[in-house]
């Protein structure tokens, strides 16, 4: 809808006709912000366009393709599905566009996937397999649901009731238990009681991300009710993907605002940073390491809170009522850095592409399932960048990032160490 009633409802692609039709091909969605452009190397932040080269893989191509889909000029094909799905929805394009133009690129991409699913053509077969696992076993790996809390060791104190509910997530529960353990122990050490979900299910990140919005919404309703029932004031996560799913996609799917969730969604790094600054947590044990920090997309540029919006678009494309765009400005960029700087002995060296310019690890939002080679390639790019700045280790705030980096590092025989920030925080508390 170019003029007239419009909303940010992703279930109707028509809402993004304006945005898709106004892409000017400046490729701000592809290049690192020109102010921060580091030179001829490490100059892009769109993994899809960088990997697959044709314009169709950048947002500038996808907006045109999306418009063709909306106007019924595009038939589904393998190539179309690959174009839509070989993409981590990392938000670099959205933030890049909004530096100057304020087009809703990310929402358009989400809406395109939702349309593909609605049309019975999407998502990718690997997504359908994973979706089945989520439905049956409540986790994306298809592992036994009853083993979800296996990561819990006896030395971890879990409260029956507390203000803080730690939502562990599938990855930390099953493939990266070190993150769950570290998070829990940090909370214990900080004297912050926490509870767990009585019956934790997958947050539905992948389902929403690949366009299976109906399934994702059902899961969201179920999970939201469970948290509300627990009386938690804060939902704590140690997974960036989960952070974004709870904070942004749940309200989006349910047509409410982040504030209306009834609790705060907080990432471990936000909490720990606050505790350190209040001197309620001290990081005293030195870690002698030159490390670099990887901004996980969903914690950084994708994490501005959600407010539903509907209104009208008129002359010159102006909308009313006014709309506060989500531009990635309010992402969690500084707290993880402050934490790392607070660890004695750590030498923090920045990646060439950092903060809102970070290059996605390649794993998230359905990519690792359907395009493992692409995910591996993206991780390789990022690991190479880490080595270029002379880092011995790379630190992330998401098990998806850590997992992908670690797998690729292992496969390639890299000696770069891969950490989740929770591990380093814990090491600096406990030793």
């Amino acid at each position, binding site marked *: 809808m170019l003029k007239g009633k419009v909303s940010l409802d992703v279930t109707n692609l028509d809402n993004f006709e304006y945005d898709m039709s106004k892409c000017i091909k400046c490729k701000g969605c592809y290049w690192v912000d020109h102010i921060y452009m580091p030179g001829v190397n490490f100059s892009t932040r769109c993994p899809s366009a960088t990997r697959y080269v044709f314009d169709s893989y950048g947002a500038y191509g996808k907006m*045109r393709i999306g418009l063709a889909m909306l106007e019924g000029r595009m038939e589904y094909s393998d190539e179309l599905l690959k174009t839509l799905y070989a993409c981590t929805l990392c938000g670099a394009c959205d933030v890049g566009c909004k*530096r100057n133009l304020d087009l809703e690129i990310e929402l358009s991409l989400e809406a395109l996937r939702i349309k593909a699913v609605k049309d019975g053509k999407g998502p990718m077969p690997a997504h359908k397999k994973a979706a089945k696992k989520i439905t049956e076993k409540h986790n994306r790996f298809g592992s036994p649901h009853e083993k979800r809390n296996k990561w819990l060791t006896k030395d971890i104190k879990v409260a029956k009731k507390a203000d803080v509910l730690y939502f562990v997530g599938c990855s930390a529960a099953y493939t990266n238990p070190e993150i769950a353990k570290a998070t829990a122990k940090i909370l214990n050490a900080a004297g912050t009681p926490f509870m767990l979900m009585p019956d934790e299910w997958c947050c539905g990140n992948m389902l929403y991300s690949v366009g299976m919005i109906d399934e994702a919404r059902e899961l969201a309703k179920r999970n939201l009710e469970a948290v509300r029932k627990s009386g938690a004031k804060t939902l704590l996560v140690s997974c960036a993907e989960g952070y974004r799913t709870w904070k942004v996609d749940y309200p989006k799917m349910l047509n409410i605002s982040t504030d209306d969730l009834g609790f705060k969604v907080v990432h471990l790094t936000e909490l720990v940073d606050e505790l350190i600054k209040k001197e309620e947590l001290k990081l005293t044990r030195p870690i002698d390491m030159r490390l670099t920090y990887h901004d996980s997309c969903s914690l950084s540029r994708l994490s501005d809170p959600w407010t539903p919006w509907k209104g009208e678009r008129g002359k010159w494309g102006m909308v009313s009522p006014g709309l506060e765009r989500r531009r990635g400005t309010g992402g969690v960029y500084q707290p993880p850095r402050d934490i790392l700087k607070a660890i004695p002995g750590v030498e923090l060296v920045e990646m060439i592409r950092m903060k809102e310019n970070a290059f996605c690890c390649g794993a998230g939002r359905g990519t690792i399932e359907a395009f493992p080679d692409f995910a591996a390639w993206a991780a390789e790019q990022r690991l190479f960048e880490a080595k270029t700045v002379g880092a011995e280790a790379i630190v992330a705030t998401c098990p998806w990032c850590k997992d992908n980096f670690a797998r690729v590092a292992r496969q390639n025989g890299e000696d770069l160490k891969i950490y989740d920030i929770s591990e380093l925080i814990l090491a600096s508390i406990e030793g």
Partner: protein
Amino acid sequence: MAISKEAYKVLEAIVGEEYISSDPVVCEGYRSGPSGYEAGLGYERVMTKIPGGVILPLTTEEVQKIVRVCNRYKVPYVPYSTGWYGPRSHCHVDDELLIDLKRMDDFEIDERHLYAVVGSGVIYSQLQEEAMKRGCYIIVGGGGSQCSAIANMLGDGWSPLSYRIGLPHRRILGTELVLPDGELVKMGSLALQDDPFWGEGLGPDLRGLLRGFTGLRGCLGIVTKMAIKLLPFQPERLTPTGISPHTALELPSNRVKWINFTMPSKESMKKAMFEMARAEIGAGATKVPIFWRAIAKASCKEEYWDIWSKESEETISGFHLLRVLLVGFGSEEQMEYEERVLNDIITEIGGEARRTRPTDESWFKNADSAGMWLMCGGYVSVDYVIETLEHALPHGENYAKLKRKFTPPLMPDYGDPGWFQSFELGHQGYSEFLVYWDPDENTDGVDHFYLETSKENIRKRFYTSLLGPHQPLYLTGPAYGPNYHKWMLAVKDEFDPNFLSHPPVPLAHDEFVEKAAWMRPMKDWKSPKLP
């Protein structure tokens, strides 16, 4: 739509199957519009098509082979570096091959001898950063950081920094050009040696074939490599600061400074520019169009309109802002000297310095050029002319009068007589007119305005950017030179006898006028039947 199977097979063998496609999804991704520079207008709707195939070469040799195959199998083609220039850089005919040059991103830099060698895939912000790391700088053309450096050097290449470092024509050094028949011409020192440091020809200078004033859109060959002159800068770092969307370069105030001055009149701005040039100070001197200030202040489109709608003819006619750039190229003392001289000049003329942010979003990295579309969704610089300040000011006034007749659909600008600057230490002046419209409304008026501008320039004897491929060649041709079009077409005929390189450029706008019903009544010049 399809490129012949035989041709496709041979092309595939040249680049490998990973780098060629005729898939409709891939091709749709290369559509010109509906938005972009000069898009959302009649030319884009009528003249552009999606490619029949896309190919991505890596080397000059591959480009040559591709062009030769196109000649063999009569496949029309268009070279494409970023696609940023808008419809004029996209396919215009059916079954056309789009040669996407983005993989050609080789880069070398010689800071001692002040040049960088780039492929078509290198963009300005990359080049500028590499230059600045080494105490040098370049001009990032008005099109912005995202321009392919080569493409912009061939069709534009100026900014307020041209006050000091001049036209792009002299910054093109050793260059490789693949002619439309596939022959390779190496220009400058590359003609004789494997060293691109020098640009002038061996005898006559074949760089004459590269661009003209505002470019040839690739209809006379494909530049695959260019050495670009760097200019010495100053040693302090311009530090990137801020989080998107509020990012900017922080300027080292002891060496780089923009200063805004409110001036009593337009004439006084011209005088200030003249005096600065006479004193040979400064690194940039430009008038600031008032609506840019509204863009800079606004946090979104709606806020822009809120600010802009409060302006009027009165406020516009009373607003004269001169923006001056000082750079301490040699030393802090030099900058202090220039600032003293500048203050002398401004005081004499009756201007006043305003508080100016010590940051830059334009023009060193020119990161905000895409913001030109924020206000309305449609934008083009209708005319941008390098001549003298004495040309720029009346050109602006004349243009503002003409523009009134076409507002709406153009965005109201309350008679703002355009943007003007001083170039080459006052030897030249520059005027540019940016127009905006809502592309979702009827845009025929914008198409008419464009052509009317061309006619008005001819009537009033102004020089113009609307030459060559920009407007009907048979309209402008007889009026400039006279008959420059004859030479252009003769050269085109010599080097592209099959008319395969970006057809029907340079006659594309002529064809547009013939094809578009709303344009035909404007045709009052003679032309032969178009090929």
